[in-house]
């Protein structure tokens, strides 16, 4: 109605996935691929939400268990668990372990309602087809993995 072009410009394709009972989404352009969950190698001194490392065609990357990270109850005994391989803006690649991928959706950025402070991992909530979906701030999630030495 009013300025459709402007509204279009703010539309971002998001991939929607479920972690436990909750649904979340991230921009689809940051997704590299989706693959089945396989055994990971435990990493010493890792934060509790890091499952471990996997080998993605020669690149070693860490997998984050989003259920642990977001502190939600994962679906029990779920064979459909998948790892979404994402690449953050600064080039860090990591995997997000989720319970299932649901679909894609166009999200109008102006419709995102902020729920938490700036540096939180959740940038806001958005309504898609009457479902409340959390929009993850990828940089925050991934950014915690790199930098700093743990001993």
């Amino acid at each position: 109605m009013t300025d459709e072009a402007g509204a279009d410009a703010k539309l971002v394709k998001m991939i929607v996935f479920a972690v436990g009972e909750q649904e979340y989404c991230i921009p689809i352009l940051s997704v590299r691929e989706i693959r089945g969950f396989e055994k990971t190698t435990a990493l010493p001194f890792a934060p509790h939400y890091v499952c471990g490392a996997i080998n993605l065609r020669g690149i070693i990357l860490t997998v984050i268990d989003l259920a642990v990270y977001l502190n939600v109850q994962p679906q029990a005994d779920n064979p459909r668990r998948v790892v979404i391989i994402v690449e953050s803006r600064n080039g860090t690649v990591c995997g997000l372990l989720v319970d299932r991928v649901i679909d894609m959706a166009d999200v109008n950025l102006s419709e995102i309602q902020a729920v938490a402070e700036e540096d939180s991992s959740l940038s806001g909530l958005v309504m898609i087809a009457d479902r409340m979906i959390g929009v993850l701030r990828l940089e925050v999630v991934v950014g915690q993995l790199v930098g700093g030495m743990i001993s």
Partner: protein
Amino acid sequence: MSGDMDDILLVFFQECEEQLQELERGLSALSDGESGKETINAVFRAVHSVKGGAASFGLENLVRFAHVFESSLDGLRSGRVAPTPEIVKTFLKAMDVLSDLVAEAQGGATVDTGRIEESRAELQAIIGEGSGGAQPQQDDTVPADFTPVPVDFEPVMADFDFGDFGFDEEEAPAAASLVVTFSPHTAMYDRGDDARNLLIGLADVAVAHGGTSTVTCETAALPALAAMETEKSYLSWRVVLPAAVPEESVHAVFDWVSDVCDVTITRDGGSGPSGGESAPEAAAAPATPEPPVPEPSAPVAAPLEATPVAASPEPQKPAAPPSIADKIMAELPPAPTPAATAPIAAGNTTARRPVEQATIRVDLHRVDDLMDLVGELVIAQAALESIGQREDGGQQEMIKRIASMKTLTRDIQDAVMAVRAQPVRSVFQRMQRVVREACSMTSKDVVLTLEGEDTEVDRTLVEKLSDPLTHMLRNAVDHGIESAEARIAAGKSPTGQILLSAGHRSGRILITIKDDGGGINRERVLATAIKRGIIAPDAVLTDDEINNLIFAPGFSTAATVSDLSGRGVGMDVVKQAILGLGGRVTISSVEGQGTTFCLSLPLTLAVLDGMLIVAAGSTMVVPVSSVVETMMVNHKDIYMLPDGANVVSIRGACMPLIPLASELGLGGYGSGGLSEEDVILVVENESGARAALIVEDIRDQAQVVIKSIEKNYRQMSGVSAATILGDGSVSLILDVPALVANALGRIDTRPSDVRTGLAA
């Protein structure tokens, strides 16, 4: 054109790099007293090539300096000057300036003109007596109109090699009076110079002074075609320049060739109007390449305007003399224009360009070896295929083939490594300069001796070694070597000695930097460390620990901050850089006798011989090179210390016992809980400190490919990298020295505590 030019320029800079290395090598040989003809020639050639190349690209500064350098070296070559240590030192200094100028041309920092002038003056002083008094000024006054010459004419030189005689230059009559006659020796052409350039240079000089030049070619000495030796110089030229032209400018034109060319310059004051005699001959135009076989009787001629165009290889057609005489006059002034634009273009291309050397030179036989191996691999693969197609399955055969393929893979790996390997010479030789500069800044006299420059390492490593070594050598000169007075007082020679050596030791490269200076003053180091809050005042440290304090961030005992060192960042940075390469630094120091730094680095950053072990249920890799022995553990040999840690006594030697799983925070172990099946690995770090790792099992020994884990994850203490095993799973490579250091409670870990303490 810019794309092509860029490529050529890149090649030029690569060549410069090589020539400079050659130069360094030659000069080092000279300073070692080896003044053979071949050495001197090599040095001369190196500078000459740089000069020649630079001239083609209009890199004025570089050309001018290289030229002076070359002239002085020529003095050496002709035996006029003896390579005394002072003179070699001057040459070394000049070489530093030269390499800086090359860097400048590559878009690096501008070189301080004072330095250039100083070095130039020194160079000229060397041959000062031999050459004319006017020489020193020439370079400064003339080049403005002189240097562009080689730029636009260079392309011609290529097709001019064979036709360096037989052209005939003629110009409309000049008003009067500076007559230059010159006859090049054959040696001049041998050297790659060309009479043509001289003529063009003279023409430019004439134009610059508002006139034109008249050139006559003296062909009297030219024998019959049959008798002509193709490589001999027969021709001489007579050039009449306008009166306004100062003699110095002419000298400058011949500056490069004065030793291989007879030149006479006379003021043709009152010998009548020169126009009169030369007008009839005003036939041919200057400077055009001639066909390979010249006809002495009928010199080929073409207008000068052809020269800028002369990039095209075809010689211009002979033209009728009188008709073009005027035309030449008209055409002459514009001639320099392309010359003027060329340097600008060249300047643009050189302007901003990352100086990343992305190519390597490889011995052909190494590539051939690799090729052979790849051929073998293809055959092996075909063999496997044929076995797969056999009816009976061929199990036995298959296993045999796979085993041979395994050796093949390993050979290929070695071959590829060999291709990437480079001698450390390039870095080591750069260090000579570092030491020289450090010496002149601290006014100490230090000789750097290099050993094992031929040791080969992966090229990425070679590049990354440069900075740490620079730091360490500067430190060695600044802090290690005492002042000459102190050295004499201590009964040493006033000249300090630093030895930089490289060698292989059990799959690693060992670089030692050894000075014969005062050694580390441990009391002072300790006092400073306490003062700066790096360690607690009541700490009791071993000598070794005190030595290692100099690697602590913020540590510096230097009373004043000098240009060289004393800011307390150097050694910390060195250590970080070496650790980053997977290496270690150890120090040993004897007070009054000197300090030795040992850098131990992995040979390659890509592959590692590893022992696959199991800890906390997951497979990990321990570098085989750090494993001393493996054994079953005997409970009787384990003692518990008051603080809860365990030590184990192995044949009388006590060492800390590290339960690997709990050390890595992977759980699964209670303190000291040791099951019967557990195995211990005795591991050792570079300085020989040992510890015993408790692991659950030893699986295998294999070559593993090192994969960085830090790109997508943070650094982990005790883990240096990761690898991918045959089944595709990720396995961690343990950082044994870090584990040992942690277990020993060494001070290496303390700096990081301090850092976090300060940050908080």
